[in-house]
């Protein structure tokens, strides 16, 4: 059957050719604004971040303590039962040194990124955040870290109320 296909069509063009105006491309910028409702669990989570605390939800059936908190347990498929304050310390589950920004442009100073498993939550309950006050080469999986908070007056009820996590000195 494939012998009936004698050519593979397509006109390749390069980004330089587009920049030089070889083709009549059309450009649009699209900047829609959104206001996303945080919902029941994350509204409370954000309020607690503003106070310098991390909170979780507990499912009394599987006994997991869930971070980020959710009002239902996706495993037991039932409502979660209680708010639990967890610690602002944790363990680096995995990390990366990012030389690119959101739009893939190269950064002068790399961003340090990690999944931090939060102490007091169930094992493996990590959140995504940044690392700071650490040399990239000395970051290790399993490293103990603690949240560095913004000043109370600067906090706005956002994940960025935690500036980053830094290593806890041994």
């Amino acid at each position: 059957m494939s012998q009936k296909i004698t050519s593979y069509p397509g006109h390749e063009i390069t980004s330089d050719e587009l920049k030089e105006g070889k083709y009549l491309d059309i450009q649009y910028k699209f900047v829609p604004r959104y206001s996303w409702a945080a919902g029941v669990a994350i509204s409370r989570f954000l309020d607690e971040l503003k106070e310098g605390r991390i909170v979780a939800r507990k499912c009394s059936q599987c006994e997991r303590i869930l971070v980020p908190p959710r009002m239902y347990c996706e495993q037991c498929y039932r409502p979660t039962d209680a708010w639990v304050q967890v610690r602002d310390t944790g363990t680096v589950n995995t990390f990366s040194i990012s030389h690119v920004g959101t739009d893939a442009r190269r950064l002068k100073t790399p961003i340090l990124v990690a999944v931090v498993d939060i102490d007091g939550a169930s094992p493996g309950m990590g959140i995504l955040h940044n690392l700071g006050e650490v040399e990239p080469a000395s970051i290790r999986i399993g490293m103990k870290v603690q949240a560095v908070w913004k000043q109370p007056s600067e906090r706005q009820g956002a994940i960025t109320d935690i500036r980053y996590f830094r290593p806890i000195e041994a």
Partner: protein
Amino acid sequence: MPILEKISQASQARHWTDSIPLEFHYTAGVAGEEFRRELKRNGRFLASECSKCKNSYVPARMFCPSCFIEMKETRTLEEPGYVYSYTTVNRNRTGEPNGPVTLALIRFEGVKGGIVHKLNVSEPSSVTFGMKVVSILKEASARTGALTDILAFKPA
């Protein structure tokens, strides 16, 4: 069993405001590129013709949607178009008063497809179905091959 705890006061509900800004640089495609070049260079509309069903389409396209074969023949439309349908708009995209602007779907005799554009008329009520119209174009030097090279259509 539903969620056990609800937000009882609106003041407890949080929201997060941000954007998903996106920038696109579209190519017009193989046939679209030809259509735009003809508009830019010669101020004419390019149509494609199907070798099998003999239908033609404007703007030019690469393949015949009914025969599902490539259309290699093109021709420029020399005759005036006609008003297939029209509307008058009194507000802009964000809803503020603006206009009136009369818009029409312009078709061409014996050709499928068409072009939606502004219609320059002194009185919206003077527009009629089938009214012959011609395009008003920008100067050749100012044309980029965009549909905005056409300033509007006007009665022929």
